């Protein structure tokens, strides 16, 4: 490790710190990948998630059908392995004659986007507020913590449904409904970690050297908490995806004809007797994605932060 020299310009100092951090990150990643090898299930989960992400990105290239335009003459074609099915529609068609596989592939865009955005915003807000509250304490912490407690008095889905009811449906509102309460868990995690890290020697050392408080929080403490936040974020992503699907199932989330798995299950429900595939197959897509995310998340937790075993 380079040692600081007496005459160091701020730029040199910054680049030195960055260098050390990058090397640290690289060795951390190498460690993570090494440990992951002992958890084959988590690796499988990660690969499945990766496959979903790739399918979502390259959806238009993967299929020649239009996800929203139907063809009523092709209504309720069964999946190819069922009698009467054909390879033209591998998973069959829905009530409007749209290729189900195409809609499931396009549906992954909504699920992943909502999951990542909702968790991403929750992480950003929760971490920022949690860091401030945990580091400075005082009245700010009091107000934020009481507000967080209050939000916890509402069951998650009920809260999201209420927010959606008053805001009205739509993508932006959906993200807002999910993050309105989603930040609380990250807030509580970061706040708690901040309070315990604050008393450690390296923070005292940074104070003695004369680093300003905000610099200490951002460059000294947060890098030590980031693993726990990352693990919790992974585990929450699957939950957010189920929340989005549930809201869309109730008709409060993504509106048809945009393909979203929840609303596809709801639409197919009316034709259970004649076309079971229209509502069950999109549900399997949710199940496999969320299962993979959770397997990956639990694997990461066991490696990075075994203390976080909260259920």
């Amino acid at each position: 490790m380079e040692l600081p020299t007496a005459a160091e310009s701020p730029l040199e100092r910054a680049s030195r710190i960055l260098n050390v951090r990058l090397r640290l990150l690289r060795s951390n990643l190498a460690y993570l990948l090494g440990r992951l090898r002992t958890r084959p299930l988590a690796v499988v989960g990660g690969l499945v998630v990766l496959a979903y992400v790739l399918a979502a990105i390259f959806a238009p290239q993967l299929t020649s059908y239009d996800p929203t335009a139907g063809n009523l003459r092709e209504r309720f074609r069964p999946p190819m392995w069922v009698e009467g099915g054909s390879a033209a529609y591998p998973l069959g068609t829905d009530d409007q004659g749209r290729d189900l596989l195409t809609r499931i592939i396009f549906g992954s865009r909504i699920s992943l986007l909502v999951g990542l955005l909702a968790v991403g915003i929750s992480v950003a807000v929760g971490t920022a507020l949690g860091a401030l509250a945990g580091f400075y304490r005082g009245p700010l912490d009091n107000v934020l913590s009481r507000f967080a407690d209050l939000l916890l008095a509402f069951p998650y889905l009920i809260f999201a449904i209420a927010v959606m009811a008053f805001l009205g449906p739509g993508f932006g509102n959906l993200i807002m409904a999910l993050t309105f309460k989603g930040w609380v868990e990250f807030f509580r995690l970061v706040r708690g970690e901040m309070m315990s890290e604050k008393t450690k020697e390296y923070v005292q050392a940074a104070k003695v050297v004369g680093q300003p408080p905000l610099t200490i929080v951002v460059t000294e403490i947060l890098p030590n908490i980031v693993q726990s936040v990352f693990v919790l974020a992974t585990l929450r992503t699957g939950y957010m995806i189920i929340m989005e699907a549930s809201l869309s199932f109730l008709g409060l989330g993504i509106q048809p004809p945009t393909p979203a798995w929840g609303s596809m299950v709801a639409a197919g429900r009316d034709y259970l007797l004649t076309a079971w595939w229209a509502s069950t197959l999109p549900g399997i897509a949710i199940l496999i994605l969320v299962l993979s995310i959770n397997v990956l998340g639990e694997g990461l937790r066991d490696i990075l932060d075994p203390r976080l075993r909260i259920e």
Partner: protein
Amino acid sequence: MRIIKVLERVLMTIPIMFGVAIVVFFFMRLTPGDPVDIMMGQGGAVGVGEIENLRREFHLDKPLHVQLWLFIKDAVRGDLGYSYIQKRPVTELIGERLPATIELAGGALLFALLVAIPVGIMSAVKENSLVDQFTMAAAFIGTSMPAFWLGIILILLFAVRLRWLPVQGRVSFDAGLERVTGFYVLDSLLTGNRAALISSLKHLVLPSVTLGATVAAIVARVLRSSMVEILRQDYITLARAKGQSEFLVVMKHALRNALIPTVTVVGLQVGALLGGNMIAETVFGWPGLGRMVVSAIFNRDFPLIQGSVMVYAFTYVIANLIVDILYTYLNPKITL
């Protein structure tokens, strides 16, 4: 001493309840326009004077903090407003639907515990056995499964294919059940109506499983992991060394302690039961609070939504209060 602690905890819920009421009041502010605008949007041609009258009737002409005060004052007296779509008081509408919802939640909780407790114990006792691995894999899948999808699979299997259980409603019409309390299982017992009892229990099965499956999965996982940990403790070894039977070691020494974290989780899962309630009621056409809220949302019946959300939140707060009190009795070391 313990009584005082419990009392303290009970009193602590009062500010939370007020906070809940304030949050619910401000939900209304999220929506563009005020309730009168929304009513007029549905009603059509009305004079300006009439709109002003309505605004006054809903206190919308008063400043916000006065509105909030009136809202809370009414709520404390059990007046949650007036549904201008159904033209009836919100409290009355909720009261009518609540028994159905409680019955379903009770069924779900019962199912969850009946499955989770034996499974959790068995998995822990036979740690890493085939049974353990299989049930824990199933529990893991259970936590990743959307409830509405499970409901549909159950309908396909048990109602459509096997025809064992009904798909919709709470009791079959021809059972001729008289409504007494609104809890149909209880009502059929009270009126001695055997056909209705069987019918209402049959109707209860699939929605309860749908709603309770995730809870069962989570509770089984928590119970197993705390049992595994406790079975490794010295006092368990001691109990075995004393020559106590394995059954007593597991059921008395280990389970009692393992139940402590489990009870907390069950309390938290009441939130999942309440939220999932809307899903299960929608899938199975269960005439409870959840379905009423969903249709209230589509009717933009805001007072009804507000009132119901408040009832859900209060139920959750009270459930957690009960759990915390239960907790002190299970674990005397804990002070609230």
